[in-house]
């Protein structure tokens, strides 16, 4: 009886630890070889055949086609530069410059990767349509209410993620965070 109870206990612990760790790792989208610049994180290897088992599992679970490294690199931000989770009820400013690339796009998704409904039907910007300052830098206001300049509506959702994709760029597996890869700053300006 004690043996049976003990085995059962060990097996339950094993199942809880094992499945819990898998769930945790995959819902965080964790993989090896992360390239983190400011609040932006990218997994360049996920777009290659060198993708590790964690990347493969998360690709299969989410059901997306990752950006191939020969096509571009995608960076995700879930929080602002101070670590505060991106909140669709706040005014958040994304400002600065991006690493060199032929084109880039920035898109707002909910955490499940769906576009967020809003009145003006805008879900992101491309490098070509963005309004820039004289020095080439830009500022995007990510906010629930209309704003002058580059306004990216949040639809008032509680949580969202920003995905910045660089197309035809030299940024890749061998890139190290540094001066040649400047990423825009993400700042929460005001919250209701």
């Amino acid at each position, binding site marked *: 009886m004690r043996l049976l109870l*003990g085995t059962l*206990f*060990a*097996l*339950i*612990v*094993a*199942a*809880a*630890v*094992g*499945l*819990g*760790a*898998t769930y945790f*790792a*995959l819902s965080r989208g964790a993989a090896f070889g992360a390239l983190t610049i400011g609040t932006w994180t990218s997994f360049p290897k996920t*777009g*290659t*055949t060198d*993708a590790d*088992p*964690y990347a*493969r*599992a998360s*690709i*299969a*679970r*989410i*059901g*997306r*086609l*990752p*950006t*191939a*490294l*020969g*096509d*571009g690199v995608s960076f995700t931000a879930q929080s602002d530069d101070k670590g505060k989770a991106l909140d669709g009820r706040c005014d958040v400013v994304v400002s600065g410059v991006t690493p060199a690339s*032929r*084109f880039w*796009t920035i*898109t707002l*998704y909910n955490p*499940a*990767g*769906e*576009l*967020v*409904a809003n009145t003006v039907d805008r*879900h*992101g910007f*491309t*490098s*070509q*349509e963005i309004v820039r300052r004289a020095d080439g830098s830009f500022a995007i206001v990510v906010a629930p209410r209309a704003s002058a300049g580059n306004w990216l509506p949040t639809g008032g959702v509680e949580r969202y993620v920003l*995905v910045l*994709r660089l*197309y*035809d760029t030299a940024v890749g597996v061998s890139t190290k965070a540094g001066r040649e890869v400047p990423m825009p700053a993400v700042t929460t300006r005001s919250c209701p």
Partner: protein
Amino acid sequence: MIRWLLLLLGGALLGGIVHLATVIVLPRTATRDAYARLEPIAPVNKVVPIPAATPDSATMPFMDPAFAIAVCRYDLSQGPLKLTVPVSLSYTSVSFYTRNDIAYYAINDRAAGRRVIELDLMTIEQHNQLPEEEDVTAADRLIVDSPTTTGIIAIRALAPEPGLMEKAKAAIAAAQCRPSDIVKTGK
């Protein structure tokens, strides 16, 4: 007390094994991966446009809404395929994915250097069966080796602003993937 601690430790170790096993097995058992999502709308060896993502519906999560996308869900068991993609005005890319949605190759319009991205897709085995002289004359011809017999080709054309989306769609609407005439394998 010690007995229970040992059981806890043993359980945790076993849990580590469970964790690694589930992570490795998951891609093979996933029923909602990108390939499975495309199966009902994309017939084999044919380029089909993927409807643009909207807040209400999207074929796959995390699709870039600035792009017109078409896919060719391929099956090379009947022989190699030939892919031709006319490039659009701004940026066109072609990415190749295995059956498990792992990207193994990508090329864009600038790298292709022509107005049409043109290449032959075959398995490594079919590539090895190519007659040598064919390989020589094919020197200026791009051959891509697929690690798996089935997979996905994703064709993407950028619409730099929303008004250009129709043009981007039109550009990739002319893309084709069809049985290759490069060589009859098994001859």
